[in-house]
């Protein structure tokens, strides 16, 4: 039986969801206009006033916000609540430039934790569960978000944070953790370490994992599920909008339900910025309609995905987003071809290689080079040189078929690619342009 954390919201009729969105959007636009001069100026430049926004149909009239706006308005420029009403900040990892700082009132935190609680419940979590949160705690939203959600569900929460993998495994085993929350690359590493310790999936008490904060492939999901003997659920979020829990996977494991009572989702053409119809792939844009302290209207996520309103077997009515193929800022342009690390990961895992890989991009004599470094494993190794080089060639062919360009594959010794306890560093771009 499917469980819901807030059934009346999660399974509400589409009419009800639209009614909530219309009402909340109108109020939110007014609030932003009154309290955020930065956005008001943008609206004025576009000739829009709050009176023009009467419901979600009018959303497209509003100007976009981008990460560049967040940097320009840093730190207080997009706040809609006085500082005295705020109780927390969180910040992005800063991997793609200057950090973004987001503010929360107590009410904001409460709603954010509700979203995470919905995700944990959708993964089968109840107050009987022991939930180990191995996302980093601190400025990163992963730890605090899932921690709060786990409390709301009533799970016994183990706040291990990331790192110290031996200790992670000790707690999972000694305290019978049934749910693990961390990045997919860290889940893969915990699985790899358990395997090395000789543990089989039936000796691991975990039954579900909630993994997010980085793009991961369907193949990596199967890999993690098999190693840990669990069901692995995706969770999506951005610090700019709250953190993890903007969208989450249900038992159907075929896309993530967006919490539409808090966020309105659109998909646009990243080139022309025009909204696209359902089912078309484009850039995801969110409008947060319940945030108090840091409400972003039409925020461009740079995540490429598809929305689907098809009926879901889990009974939830909220729109589903596909697994993002990767953030546009993770996208590499190599010899003019768009390449996402997740595409390379798909090829590797399909051919039996581990998810530990590194992509090295360089420019030699004005030509981009792509070198995919993969670790040799005891399972793949043989004394037969021809067999190894044939497999290497199959990988090169597979990458060419997937990406449409030729890549070099380098086999490296085990454990030479640094393991990640948070977001994995997949790409080293040495090009100096």
């Amino acid at each position, binding site marked *: 039986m499917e469980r819901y954390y807030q059934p009346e919201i999660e399974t509400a009729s589409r009419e009800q969801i639209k009614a909530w969105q219309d009402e909340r959007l109108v109020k939110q636009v007014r609030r932003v206009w009154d309290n955020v001069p930065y956005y008001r100026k943008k609206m004025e430049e576009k000739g829009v006033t709050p009176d023009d926004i009467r419901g979600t149909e009018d959303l497209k009239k509003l100007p976009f916000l981008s990460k560049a706006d967040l940097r320009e308005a840093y730190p207080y420029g997009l706040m809609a609540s006085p500082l005295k009403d705020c109780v927390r900040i969180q910040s992005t990892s800063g991997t793609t430039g200057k950090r973004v700082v987001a503010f929360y009132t107590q009410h904001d935190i409460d709603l954010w934790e509700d979203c995470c609680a919905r995700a944990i419940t959708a993964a089968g979590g109840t107050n009987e569960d022991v939930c180990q949160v191995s996302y980093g705690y601190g400025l990163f939203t992963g730890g605090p978000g899932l921690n709060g959600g786990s409390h709301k569900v009533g799970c016994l929460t183990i706040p291990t944070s990331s790192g110290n993998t031996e200790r992670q495994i000790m707690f999972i085993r000694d305290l019978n953790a049934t749910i693990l929350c961390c990045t997919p690359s860290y889940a893969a590493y915990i699985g790899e370490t358990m395997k090395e310790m000789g543990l089989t999936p039936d000796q691991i008490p975990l039954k579900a994992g909630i993994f997010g904060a980085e793009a991961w492939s369907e193949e990596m999901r199967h890999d993690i599920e098999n190693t840990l003997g669990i069901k692995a659920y995706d969770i999506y979020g951005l610090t700019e909008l709250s953190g993890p829990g903007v969208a989450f996977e249900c038992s159907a494991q075929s896309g993530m339900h967006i919490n539409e009572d808090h966020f309105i989702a659109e998909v646009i053409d990243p080139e022309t910025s025009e909204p696209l119809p359902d089912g078309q792939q484009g850039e995801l844009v969110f409008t947060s309609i319940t945030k108090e302290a840091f409400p972003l209207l039409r925020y461009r996520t740079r995540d490429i995905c598809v929305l689907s309103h098809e009926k879901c077997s889990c009974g939830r009515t909220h729109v589903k987003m596909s697994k993002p193929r990767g953030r546009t800022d993770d996208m590499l342009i190599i010899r003019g071809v768009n390449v996402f690390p997740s595409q390379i990961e798909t090829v590797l895992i399909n051919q039996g290689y581990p998810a530990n890989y590194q992509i090295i991009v360089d420019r030699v004599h004005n030509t981009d080079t792509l070198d995919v470094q993969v670790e040799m494993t005891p399972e793949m*190794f043989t004394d037969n040189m021809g067999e190894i080089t044939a497999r290497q060639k199959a990988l090169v062919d597979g990458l060419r078929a997937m990406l449409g360009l030729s890549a070099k594959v380098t086999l490296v010794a085990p454990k030479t690619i640094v393991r990640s306890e948070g977001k994995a560093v997949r790409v080293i771009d040495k090009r100096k342009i």
Partner: protein
Amino acid sequence: MSVKQISVFLENRPGALCELTGVLAENAIDMRAFSLAEASDFGIARIIVDDVYKTTTVLRDKGFVHSVTPVLAAALSDTPGGLNEILQCLSAEGINVEYMYAFLGNTPGKAYMVFRVNDPAAGTAALCRHGIEPLEELNVE
């Protein structure tokens, strides 16, 4: 009667081979035979040692990917035609040699070879039928 050869994966970069020999030296492992095969970006070191169990344990602890392969080792006459004689035996019985390498022994007039063949049991039988006894271990004095 085959001998256990340990094949070790090595990256093709300065120092990679030295890391392997370093581990063997630290653990006082005596190599009887050694050969190196290389592709463009990696290599396989093939070694025959005095203590296979100890060596594989040490290599595993140090994170070297390796495998154990049965190979034939034989002493042959160190005269013109010595190798030819052995290869003719194998050839006559349809046994394929994938690779082979020579190693040193101290017996005057003898040369020592390691053969990796497609079917070690059949290879052993072929040599025996021609009066050549494959070595059981490489304690060549």
